[in-house]
C-alpha cells in the first residue's frame, strides 16, 4: 500500500495537478510519523510513508492548506479523515476546489502504547502488513498480532468508507457494525457516584496542554473561547476540578453533532484520558434521542443541534432514563 500511495503522490506532483501533497513523513523510529507537505519526487521517495502508525487525521491541515495560493494541494485521507473532510466542507472551513483528495484504504492503525502495554520495550522498528507485525527492539525482535495492538478507535472502527474523494487508492470500504458505544453503555450503567469517581480519576490527570483541542478537526475556531480573555471562561491551566470539568464539558458540547468520532483527541492525550468517551456519549444520545446521525457522512443534513423535531423528548428524559434507580 505504501508504494501505491507514494506512486500516486509522485504522479500528482508530476502531472501538474498539484504543487504539493500532504502526507506522512518518516521519523526516527517506525512509529513517530509526522504529517508533512511534500513538494518533490525526491522528498517523497525518501521520506513519505504510509503504514500502521499513520494515525494523524490530515483533514484539519486542509483548512489552512486549501486557502493557500498556487495549485491544488493533494491530500491523502484515510476513511476517518474523509468524514472530517466532509464535515469541514459543510462548515465552509475547507475550500474544496483547492484540494485534490485521494482516499486511502485503511487496515486500522496501531497504538504504540498498546505495543508497550504488551510488554515490548525499546522499540526500534516494526514490519509486516496483514495480521502479524514483527517488532525490532533494543532487546531483540518480537512478533505480535496486529489485532492485539490496534488503536482502540480502530478496533471498533465505524466505517471504512472513503467519502467525497477525487480518487481512491486501494479498495472502497463499507460502513461497519461497530461496538464503539459499549464503553459508554458501561459507564451509563454505573451509579452516579461510580461515574463521578471514574471521571474525576481520568480528568484529574488533565494538564490542559490543549492537544485534544488543537488536533480536533471540529475544534477549528479562529479563536477558542478558552483562549479568549473576553469569553468569560478563558483559562490557561485547570486550577481545580471545576476547571477540568468545564473545559472538557464545553469542548465536548461545542463539537456535539459535529464530531465525527475520529478519535484523535484520545490518541494525542499525553495523559491517556479517554476523551472519546465524552464525544461518543453525545453521539450515542443523539442517535437514541433524535435518530441515527453520523457527522460528516453527507453534505446536506442539518447537524442535530441545529435541528429539532416538534416531538423531541423533553430534557427530563435524562432523569427518566436513569439506570441507578
Amino acid at each position, binding site marked *: 500500500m505504501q508504494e501505491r500511495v507514494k506512486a500516486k503522490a509522485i504522479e500528482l506532483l508530476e502531472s501538474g495537478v498539484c504543487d504539493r501533497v500532504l502526507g506522512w513523513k518518516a521519523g526516527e523510529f517506525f512509529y513517530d510519523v509526522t504529517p508533512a507537505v511534500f513538494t518533490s519526487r525526491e522528498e517523497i521517495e525518501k521520506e513519505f510513508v504510509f503504514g500502521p502508525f499513520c494515525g494523524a487525521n490530515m483533514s484539519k491541515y486542509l483548512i489552512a492548506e486549501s486557502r493557500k495560493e498556487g495549485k491544488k494541494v493533494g491530500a491523502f485521507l484515510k476513511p476517518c479523515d474523509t468524514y472530517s473532510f466532509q464535515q469541514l466542507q459543510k*462548515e465552509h472551513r475547507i475550500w474544496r476546489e483547492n484540494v485534490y483528495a485521494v482516499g486511502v484504504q485503511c487496515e486500522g492503525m496501531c497504538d504504540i502504547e498498546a505495543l508497550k502495554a504488551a510488554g515490548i520495550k525499546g522499540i526500534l522498528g516494526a514490519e509486516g502488513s496483514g495480521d502479524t507485525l514483527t517488532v525490532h527492539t533494543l532487546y531483540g525482535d518480537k512478533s505480535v498480532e496486529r489485532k492485539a495492538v490496534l488503536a482502540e478507535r480502530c478496533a471498533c472502527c465505524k466505517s471504512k468508507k472513503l467519502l467525497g474523494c477525487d480518487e481512491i487508492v486501494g479498495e472502497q470500504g463499507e460502513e461497519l457494525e461497530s461496538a464503539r458505544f459499549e464503553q459508554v453503555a458501561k459507564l451509563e450503567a454505573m451509579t452516579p457516584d461510580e461515574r463521578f469517581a471514574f471521571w474525576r480519576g481520568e480528568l484529574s490527570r488533565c494538564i490542559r496542554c490543549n492537544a485534544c483541542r488543537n488536533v480536533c478537526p471540529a475544534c477549528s475556531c479562529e*479563536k*477558542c473561547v478558552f483562549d479568549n480573555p473576553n469569553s468569560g471562561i478563558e483559562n490557561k491551566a485547570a486550577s481545580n476540578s471545576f476547571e477540568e470539568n468545564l473545559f472538557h464539558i464545553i469542548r465536548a458540547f461545542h463539537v456535539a453533532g459535529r464530531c465525527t468520532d475520529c478519535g484523535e483527541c484520545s490518541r494525542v492525550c499525553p495523559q491517556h484520558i479517554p476523551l472519546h468517551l465524552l464525544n461518543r456519549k453525545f453521539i450515542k444520545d443523539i442517535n437514541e434521542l433524535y435518530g441515527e446521525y453520523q457527522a460528516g457522512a453527507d453534505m446536506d443534513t442539518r*447537524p442535530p443541534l*441545529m435541528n429539532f423535531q416538534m416531538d423531541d423528548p423533553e430534557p427530563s428524559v435524562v432523569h427518566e432514563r436513569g439506570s441507578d434507580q
Partner: protein
Amino acid sequence: MQKIGVFVCWCGSNIAATVDVQAVSDALAKEPGVVFSTNYQYMCSQAGQDMIQEKIREFGLTGVVVCSCSPRMHETTFRKTCEKAGLNPYMVEIANIREQCSWIHKDKETGTEKAIILGRAAIAKVQLNAPLTAGQSPVVKRALVIGGGIAGIQTALDIADAGFPVDIVETKPTIGGKMTQIDKTFPTLDCAACILTPKMVDAAQNENINILSYSEVEAVKGFVGNFSVTIRRKARFVDETKCTGCGLCTEKCPQKKVPNEFNLGLDNRRAIYIPFAQAVPKVATIDPNYCTMLKTGKCGVCSKVCTAGAIDYQQKDELIEREYGAIVAATGFNPISMDKFDEFAYSQSPDVVTSLEFERLMNAAGPTGGTLLRPSDGTHPHTLVFVQCVGSRCDGGEKGKPYCSKICCMYTAKHAMLTREKYPDTDVYVFYIDVRTPGKNFDEFYRRAVEEYGVHYIKGMVGKVVPENGKLKVQASDLLGGQQLHIDADMVVLAAAIEPDKSARPLATMLTASMDTNDFFTEAHPKLRPVESPTAGVFLSGACQGPKDIPETVAQAGAAASKVIGLLVKDHLTCNPCVASSNEMMCNGCSACEKVCPYGAITYIDKDFRGPNRTTLRRRVAQVNPAVCQGCGACTVACPSGAMDLKGFSNAQIMAEVDAICK
C-alpha cells in the same frame, strides 16, 4: 468605569411592606461603581422620574438601576425618563423587587436580602451595558384581520375608515360569524340581523376592504410592520367574480340532504348553497363532501342552470402570499360540545337543545320560520326548562371550562322573556347557580324577566333529564327552597359554555402569539394593553381573547383597530436594538448561526483580513441584518467561538448577573 445611580422604589407599600427599602439603597450604595443611591415612594410618578433625571444630570450618571416592579411594567417608562435626561435608554436596568420579591415573600428580612441581591445583579449587568441605538424598519401599510365575525368586521371597517387597506380572511363562505345566527340581542331586544347585515354590506362595499371568504391562513412569517402571510383560498367551485348570487343553483341542486350548519343541523340545505340570504359575499359554494358531480363526476345540474357560467368544477385551492404591517386575530368562539353532558339527555332527545339552537328555533329566518316548535314532533312546547352554566365554572375542568362564559345569564333571560312574551301560555323555568348581570341595563333586564314576564328563576342545578313518553323529566334541586324538584318539560335549553374557535391554537403558533391554558389569546397586559398580543404587531379583537358580549366585542374591535391604525400611520418602526452581532475577528463562517436563525437575519460575505507578516487572509464571516434580527439569541449559543453575541443580553452581562446572584 460606570457611574451608576440606584433608585429603589417603595411602590407605596407594595414593596416597602416586605422590603426594607432604606437598607436596600444603603447596601447598594456600597457596590463598586455606584455613586448615588436612594429610595422613593413612587419612582414611576412624575416626581420620581424628575428625581432620576435630576440625579443623572447632577452626578453625570452613565448607568441607572431602578429597583421596582417588573421590567415588563415600567422598563420602557424609565428608559424614556433617562433618555430625556440625555442618558442612552439602554443604560437602564430594572431589578424586579416587586413581582419577584416583595409580593412573594412575607418575611421582611428575607425580602430585603433578596432585593439587595437582585439589585446587585442589575448593577453588575449595567456595568457592562453599552449605549445602543435603535435602527428602523419600514411598515407595510396594510392590515390583515383573521375572522369575519362582528369583531373582525368592525375592526376592518375602522381601519379602512382611517384609509388603510385591510383584508378579512374568513374560513366560512360568508362573513358575519355567530351574530348572524342570533335572533334578538340583549338587553335592547333589537334584531341582530338588522344591525349586523348593514355592517356586512359596508364591509363588502368599502374599497379599502378586501374580503377573502372561504379562506384560511396557512403560514405567517416576518415581524411587526413586515409580516408575510400565506393564505389558502379554498376552492368553492364557483367563480366569485361571475356568480350573481341569484340562488337558482341552490334551488335546483338534486342533493338535498345536507345538514345546514347555519341552522346547526336543524334542517337541510343543498350541496351547492348560499349560507343565508344576506350572505357577504353573496356567492354560492359547492360543498365537496356532498356534491355528486365532484364525487362521482355525474350530475352537473348547477352548471347547467347557471346563466352566469360561474360553476367551475376544476377549481383548485389557491395559495396567495401577501404582506401586512399588522395582524388582528378575531377568530371568535363556539359553544362547547355537549357530548360529555349526557345527564341532560342532549344526545337522546332532540327536544334538548343548546341556546344557540334555540336562537335558530326562535328566528324568523330559522328552520321553523320563527315559530317555536319542538324539534321532535313540531308541536308547541308548554313547559320549558333553561339550564345555565352547562360546562361553565366547572372545577377540575375535565368536562367543562373553569371560567364563566359571561353571556349565558343574559341570553337565557332574553330567551325566557321572549318565550313568555310570544307564548304567554308557557311555563318557563331557569336553573342557575348565580345570575350575573353586571352591565348597563342588564340587571333591569333580568328583573323584568322575573317580575314582568313571570319567569321562574330557581337557584339550583339540574341533576338529570330523562326523556319519557314525549316528555322530558327534569330532576333538579331548589337550593333556596331546600327541596328536590321534578318538572315534566317539553323542551330543555342548555346554556352551553363557550370556547375559543379550534383554529385559534394553530394560528397562535403561526403568529407566535401566546395563549392561556383555555386557548384564549393572552393580552400584552391584562389591564393596560388589553387588545394587543405580547407579540408586536398582533392585535386581539372579540371573543378570541375571552368571553364577551356584542357591545364589548365591538368596543374591543374598535380599540384594536385604533392600535392598528396607530401602527400603520408610522412610516418606520424603531427596531429593537437588542440584536445579535458577530465579531468578525472570531467568526469561523461555519453557518451554525444561520441554521438556527428563525428570521433569516444572517448572511455571509467573504472578507479580506490582515494576516500575520503582512499577508492577507480571506475569510467567510457572518453578518446580521439588525432590522430582521429579533434578538432571540439562538445564534449566540450555536456559535462555538463566541463570535456571535447579543446586545443587551451579552454573554458577559448574563454571566455578571449569575456571579452577582451566586455570590
